[in-house]
């Protein structure tokens, strides 16, 4: 419950920004923020007013390669340029991994007995990699009959949570929900919102069991990948 008393709300919003709430309470606030403009204003108040304190942490140069890793994670173009001299070894490995998985996947599509998607020129593939480890966890195939998502290795969300699939259309930043991924690790989305096609980013976040209550990811994004024509 988010308190109604203004002073209590301000105090809890302040504790949320400080980070002193326990995880359950912080989660409540995070969920309430999307539909409670007053609470949002209270949180923004504290972020803005306490911000001057952040100068007490001395600036430091991040390790080299950090930007390259960020660029690789956000840019479809970067993932198509494994020859870039600045690309870090781990990323080159990941790019090689993508090609190998995509190739293996076409075999899978041909071999799978009930596969409704044909490996034609219209098939578009995304390999979703872990935001933490870069390992490939899921594969998504976009074809004439919609989008099919399959786990590559067994994927289990944290207890009392579910994975939810999102699409971010090219040149936009707003994720559109595609649905909660069943515990089987397999999902098909027949009717797709606009913007799901080559170049779109697919992302999987951790959400409450029924999916995000807000229409936007409320938990961490744990897998991402870009749809590409194969």
């Amino acid at each position, binding site marked *: 419950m988010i308190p109604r008393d203004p002073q209590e709300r301000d105090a809890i919003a302040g504790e949320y920004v400080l980070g*002193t709430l326990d995880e359950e309470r912080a989660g409540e606030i995070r969920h309430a923020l999307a539909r409670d403009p007053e609470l949002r204003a209270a949180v923004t108040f504290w972020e803005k007013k306490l911000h001057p304190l952040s100068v007490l942490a001395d600036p430091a140069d991040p390790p080299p390669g950090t930007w390259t890793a960020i660029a690789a994670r956000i840019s479809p173009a970067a993932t198509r340029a494994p020859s870039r001299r600045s690309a870090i070894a781990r990323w080159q490995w990941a790019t090689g991994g993508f090609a190998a998985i995509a190739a293996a996947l076409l075999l899978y599509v041909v071999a799978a007995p009930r596969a409704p998607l044909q490996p034609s020129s219209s098939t578009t593939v995304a390999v979703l990699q872990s935001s933490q480890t870069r390992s490939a966890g899921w594969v998504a195939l976009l074809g004439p009959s919609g989008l099919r998502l399959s786990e590559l290795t067994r994927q289990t969300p944290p207890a009392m949570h579910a994975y939810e699939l999102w699409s971010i259309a090219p040149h936009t930043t707003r994720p559109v929900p595609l649905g909660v991924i069943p515990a089987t690790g397999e999902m098909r989305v027949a009717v797709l919102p606009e913007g799901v096609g080559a170049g779109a980013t697919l992302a999987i976040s951790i959400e409450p069991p029924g999916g995000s209550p807000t229409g936007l990811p409320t938990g961490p994004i744990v897998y991402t990948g870009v749809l590409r024509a194969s």
Partner: protein
Amino acid sequence: MEQPASLSSPDVLVEAVARGSEPALRRLYALESARLYGIALRIVRRPDIAAEVLQDAFVQIWRNAGSFAPERGAAAAWLTGIVRFRALDALRGQGREIPSGDSALGDVAVEPDVLAKLDADADAAALRRCLGQLEENQRSSVMLAFVDGFSHADIAKRLSAPLGTVKSWVRRGLIALKACLSP
């Protein structure tokens, strides 16, 4: 279209990032990464984890810039908020223990003339004045939580006080701050 001459403040850059400009994100990184990495490092205390926090934060900035409601001067605070939340999450993942043997943790936040280190601008001046009016333990608790990412338990350990007392210091400190900072 890029407009390099005007792309120099976090506010302008975040707006451009919201429109999907990767060069703007790169400029934002050039401008803000050292500050934000410093904030993350202070909280998680490990360079490798701080670098991951920074990576995740910039990917999140790229994805969420569209939902950021622009208010002049607020972008830097928004970026700080994202990095702090990411860093606190990473710290919780580690069990959120103050590593033993590092007794200097939190020293900056509790040194007597710490408020003099804040910037000279109006926002910082107001915060300095209002923090200065708090009871010392309330002020230290708020600052240890914000700057070092300390939990109630961490603060209790650092200030050698019972947990319940620390909880009330933080809460009462915030209520007094709110009254002082509100117009």
